């Protein structure tokens, strides 16, 4: 058998695994791999401007296509720069394979140039990682890495390849997948637990479906199953930030997002429900608020593919370790087998309608200033008839987008939920645009967040990616400022965005189009122009500077202690609540 170099084996594996796009940045320790991909037209390499962006772009690609994102970076700083994106993918369960170059095996441990202990550094921010010490191990490792990244609870996997392993040769045979004998994710639900869940459904008078990113990760069939189950039950549906789009926002059963900045009706329904069906959601602290006051009246069924998510935060009555889609299908089948008929939940719904009538997402307008909520609402109106993908950075704009942009389909909403990474949205939009060339991809950004990966304007120009950046510019790190107003008596310590660039000129400097929107009259035409302008566009939308994101459950408070408007803000908070953040 002819021998092939490690670099050649790696690229062959990527081709065999159907990889069409790699986000990367070259450097000394990956030169052999870069030399090999130079010859391959089938793999499109996207040169980013910073390795963090490569990882976020891979996340955006993965989240919007369902396929794993692939990253290729060099040793040392290449790997360490990618770590934020890798951690982000771990927290949000994004399938990703990161290939890092490493110094030659005989130099490992000698503090060599651009050496970092990549497997050590990434051990706890990956689902699994490898240091490959021989080209003969490479093919099996790469295939196993993709299997682990994409199966079970998805996540990032790092493959660290020393430079001499890339150059050395070994016999190559296309491997058959021979995954770790100890790696056996449970995807099929236990029948007994499904029966118990159904028994609770049959007894329930006030059920609610609490859904999360697990439905999106499970694939489009899970979203279909969720819609079918909701239709069968006639129960209200709420979702975490990560799960938006799995259930259509246009449905009358939709209560909106729950949690810290969720709607009044979603949080009250969770609080008063007698049965919570948690489907692919993990009771994150942004969702639960004060734990001893969380959904005190309810039995809880928790479907999660990760046994570690169950009973981690909230005691569960019926644990179902399974793929969310498979579990929902099993519940539907079980209900049908019992001749289930939709019960009368009209009392429950009439209470929900009272909460809904509070119109918790309303905001006060007037005058020339653009309210940020209005900007998002107009963006939604102008794009709702198109195939639109929204990404966000992290902060107030992210919450306003989650509240005022409405999603009817999965994989159209890409945001950094678990890690809360400023700088995620723009590179994620790049990945989403590459995976969905015909979609309108918009990064809803803040003036502070966008500067964390603004250098990627170079990337969108290089690859002619028509990504739109819609900056809600209030000249503050708005969420930090909001918390300072609420809990630190408006002492705005270092939360003002001083010395902001002129975003229009900045866009133009890179060769993109810049648009400034300053008044209400300019809002709708400005959004229109953004959509109609080919190529990348940066919109600097000047919004009311001191707007706060409401409703809000203050840290350490119960769902029922929700703040609906600024008049309820005291400006102080006790130490217990401050410590929770």
């Amino acid at each position, binding site marked *: 058998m002819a021998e092939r170099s490690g670099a050649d084996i790696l690229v062959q594996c990527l081709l065999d695994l159907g990889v069409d796009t790699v986000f990367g940045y070259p450097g000394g320790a990956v030169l052999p791999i870069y030399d090999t991909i130079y010859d391959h037209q089938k793999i499109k390499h996207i040169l980013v401007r910073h390795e963090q962006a490569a990882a976020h772009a891979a996340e955006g690609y993965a989240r919007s296509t369902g396929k794993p994102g692939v990253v290729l970076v060099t040793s040392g700083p290449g790997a360490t720069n990618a770590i934020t994106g890798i951690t982000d993918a771990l927290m949000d369960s994004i399938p990703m394979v990161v290939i890092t170059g490493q110094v030659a095996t005989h130099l490992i441990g000698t503090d060599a140039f651009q050496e970092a202990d990549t497997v050590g550094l990434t051990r706890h921010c990956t689902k699994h990682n490898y240091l490959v010490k021989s080209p003969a191990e490479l093919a099996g490792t790469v295939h196993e890495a993709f299997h682990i990244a994409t199966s079970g609870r998805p996540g990032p996997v790092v493959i660290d390849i020393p430079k001499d392993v890339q150059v050395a040769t070994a016999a190559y045979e296309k491997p058959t997948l021979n995954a770790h004998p*100890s790696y056996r994710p449970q995807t099929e639900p236990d029948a007994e637990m499904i029966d118990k869940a159904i028994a609770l459904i049959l007894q329930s008078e006030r059920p609610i479906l609490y859904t999360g990113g697990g439905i999106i990760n499970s694939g489009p069939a899970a979203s279909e199953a969720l819609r079918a189950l909701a239709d069968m039950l006639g129960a209200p549906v709420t979702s975490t930030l990560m799960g938006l789009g799995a259930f259509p926002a246009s449905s009358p059963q939709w209560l909106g997002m729950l949690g810290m900045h969720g709607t009044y009706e979603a949080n009250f329904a969770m609080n008063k429900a007698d049965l919570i069906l948690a489907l692919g959601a993990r009771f994150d602290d942004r969702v639960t608020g004060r734990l001893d006051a969380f959904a005190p009246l309810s039995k809880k069924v928790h479907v999660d593919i990760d046994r570690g998510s169950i009973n981690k935060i909230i005691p569960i009555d019926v644990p179902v370790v399974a793929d969310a889609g498979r579990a929902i299908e099993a519940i539907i089948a079980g209900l049908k087998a019992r001749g289930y008929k939709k019960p009368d939940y009209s009392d429950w719904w009439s209470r929900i309608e009272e909460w809904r009538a509070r119109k918790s997402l309303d905001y006060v307008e007037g005058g020339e200033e653009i309210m940020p909520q209005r900007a998002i609402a107009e963006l939604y109106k102008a794009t709702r008839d198109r195939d639109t993908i929204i990404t966000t950075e992290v902060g107030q704009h992210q919450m306003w987008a989650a509240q005022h942009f409405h999603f009817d389909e999965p994989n159209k909403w890409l945001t950094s939920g678990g890690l809360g990474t400023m700088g995620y949205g723009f590179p994620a939009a790049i990945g989403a645009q590459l995976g969905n060339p015909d979609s309108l991809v918009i990064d809803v950004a803040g003036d502070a967040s966008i500067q964390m990966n603004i250098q990627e304007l170079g990337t969108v120009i290089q690859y002619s990616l028509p990504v739109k950046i819609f900056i809600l510019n209030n000249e503050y790190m708005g969420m930090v400022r909001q918390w300072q107003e609420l809990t630190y008596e408006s002492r705005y310590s270092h939360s003002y965005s001083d010395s902001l660039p002129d975003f229009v000129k900045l866009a133009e400097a890179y060769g993109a189009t810049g648009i400034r929107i300053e008044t209400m009259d300019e809002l709708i035409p400005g959004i229109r122009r953004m959509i109609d302008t080919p190529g990348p566009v940066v919109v600097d939308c000047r919004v009311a500077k001191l707007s706060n994101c409401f409703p809000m459950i203050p840290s350490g408070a119960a769902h029922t202690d929700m703040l609906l408007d600024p008049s309820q803000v005291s400006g102080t908070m006790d130490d217990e609540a401050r410590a929770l953040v």
Partner: protein
Amino acid sequence: MHIRQEDSERHVLSVTVTNEAGILARIAGLFSARGYNIESLTVADVSADHKVSRITIVTNGPPRVIDQIIAQLDRLVPVHKVTDLTEIGPFVERELALVKVAGTGEARIEALRLADVFRAKVVDTTLESFIFEITGPSSKVDTFVGLMRELGLVEVGRTGVVGMLRGTAA
């Protein structure tokens, strides 16, 4: 404000893992990253083909945390099986210690007498010292070491706990 503490219980966990580079760091790092306690940790290759190691971990925490520890260990890719010996029980727990005691006269004789009571073996001796080898549950080792402190204890080396379920089941 004060940080609240919950009541802890001690559990002995037996974990079988693929014997691969970095596995011990992965397990130990999981404990430190998630703030779990390790009282002792032992690891050794236990298979004929050197592919599987057995790790015994003694930990403590509230029941909720113990459950999380097991779940978090179990989701690591190279972990085959996690057995909570304390929960499943009954199980045998053993630890080996080497205990060096120096002294002369009555103290030396008393040390030897107590060693006999505890069925500790003398594995090294000079005219002024002994090294005792003692095996048993950690509590027995603790007691023996405690007594030796009064009788010229010089140093102690302990292996940490290994444990195994009683009866035929693995």
